[in-house]
């Protein structure tokens, strides 16, 4: 494990009943690195990134996030969740709270920030994702793209050291995909460490330091984008690329 490592997977395996979803995963991500994860449906991409903030529990191997090992220890889990932001395919905004309240909730209750400070912080991020004029609306009054940008702002308000994205644009109408990707590109340019499950290969080419290809619970290859697209090693990668490109 090197010094800059912020995510460290060592021989991680996980089963749902008899079915092995993750098969001996080894992965190390450094601070500031942007990783795109792709692979066929059911290959374990979501499960892998959900292990990073313990929404899923791994059964074998070792996961260390920002110096904290994920075990059954609740304190460790809380520590990690505070530092890791997550954006979901279905947004998962809290429908009974305004956009602003969605964003200030965790800073106020988890970080114990005074309300005024939390509001100021939230407004800064909401401005950054360009929905500062919608902050008093409720999630269901916003378009899908706006909701996803609000969800990104909500995660950023915890000032995480690392952001996870699980297919953030898959539930969006095509015309809204770009507005969300633009926000993510901006975030990448600011140096955020990002792990993104996506099939947006344009985004991967532009932003990723490495592309991780998964199949049947294994990491088949992990390479820089140019290498990955021009020089795939395994037949499974070639087949996958031929299907999506």
């Amino acid at each position: 494990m090197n010094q800059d490592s912020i995510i460290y997977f060592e021989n991680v395996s996980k089963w749902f009943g008899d079915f092995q979803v993750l098969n001996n995963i080894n992965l190390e991500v450094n601070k500031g690195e942007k990783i795109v994860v792709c692979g066929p449906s059911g290959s374990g991409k979501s499960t892998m990134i959900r292990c990073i903030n313990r929404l899923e529990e791994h059964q074998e191997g070792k996961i260390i996030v920002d110096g904290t090992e994920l075990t059954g220890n609740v304190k460790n889990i809380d520590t990690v969740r505070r530092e890791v932001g997550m954006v979901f395919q279905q947004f998962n905004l809290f429908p009974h709270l305004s956009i602003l309240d969605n964003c200030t909730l965790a800073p106020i209750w988890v970080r114990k920030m005074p309300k005024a400070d939390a509001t100021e912080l939230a407004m800064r991020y909401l401005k950054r994702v360009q929905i500062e004029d919608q902050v008093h609306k409720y999630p269901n009054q916003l378009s899908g793209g706006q909701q996803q940008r609000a969800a990104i702002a909500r995660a950023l308000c915890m000032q995480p050291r690392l952001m996870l994205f699980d297919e953030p644009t898959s539930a969006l109408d095509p015309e809204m995909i770009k507005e969300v990707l633009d926000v993510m590109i901006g975030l990448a340019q600011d140096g955020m460490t990002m792990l993104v499950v996506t099939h947006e290969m344009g985004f991967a080419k532009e932003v990723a330091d490495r592309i991780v290809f998964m199949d049947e619970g294994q990491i088949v290859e992990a390479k820089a984008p140019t290498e990955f697209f021009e020089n795939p090693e395994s037949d499974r990668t070639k087949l996958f690329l031929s299907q999506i490109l």
Partner: protein
Amino acid sequence: MLSFNWIRQNLFSSWTNSIITVVLIYFLASIIPPMFDWLFFEATWIADDRTGCTSDGACWAIIGARFYQFMYGFYPTEEVWRVNLVYALLPFGILPLLWDKMPFRKQFLIFAIVYPFLVFFLLYGGPGLTAVASNKWGGLLLTLFLGLGGIIIAFPLSIFLALGRRSEMPAISAICVVFIEFIRGVPLITLLFFGSMMLPLFLPEGLDIDTVLRALVAVIIFQAAYGAEVVRGGLQAMPKGQYEAAQALGLSYWQMNLKIILPQALKITIPALVNTAIGLFKDTSLVIVIGLLDLLGIGRAALADTKWMALHVEVYVFISVIFFIFCFGFSRYSLYLEKKLNTDNDSENK
């Protein structure tokens, strides 16, 4: 409004519709005037006993003669101001919990917390107040004490039970399941019996818990078990993504439930919760089996009085009206709450 057009479109839009309208009008016209005659115009309001009611209408004199008992049971007359004070303060004890735009709500909320203790002190007595044994309580006093007390105290308990049942800790969830299923599996009447007949057998001699309190405990656990299942239904309807988003933000178990899950889950269970509350409020009449006389019990006692015999209809109409006022109030409140919570989500600024 009731314009010619409205009438035509709604009441006479087709042949069948017109026939139904005409039949209904005929039906109402032949029912309502005699009903009003009996209820009001030909009723006797004041009389010394049954024989004083000579008119064809209702004999409301029985209600007047027994009004004190209907309101207070057998509470001593010289202490009845205490009950009146409890009644008078009731709106201030309950409204701040129900109405979020109440003027001076913050101050009243503090009062709402004090109110239950005040009620106990005033009704039972204590330092500076003569003790009034609870077997003297009755009528509306007892109905409200058991009904409202049961509903309000059981509400937080049912939330804990529902959360407990869904807990990932097997011991907690097992305890909650057993409790809920056991209580739901038996009628309230047996719980009341159990409380009043069996409990004293298990308690050390000399330690005597008051009958009304035992009934209150029975009512609370009964309502808590029913409420728990309603709340659990609401919890189950919550999408998994809400839990995951809350956890991913680092919220603790209680923060997640208090801030994210319960506000949404309770909102969708309001109609069902109010439904069980109304059911319980009416079921408090069962305390008659353990010798307590609530509103209904007092009514039956009045009917047994030879001076007033055979005035069943008057007594039951009166009791029904009182129950109706409260239950209708609950149901209107639930509608108000649903509407309020919905508009909160739709309007741009709260």
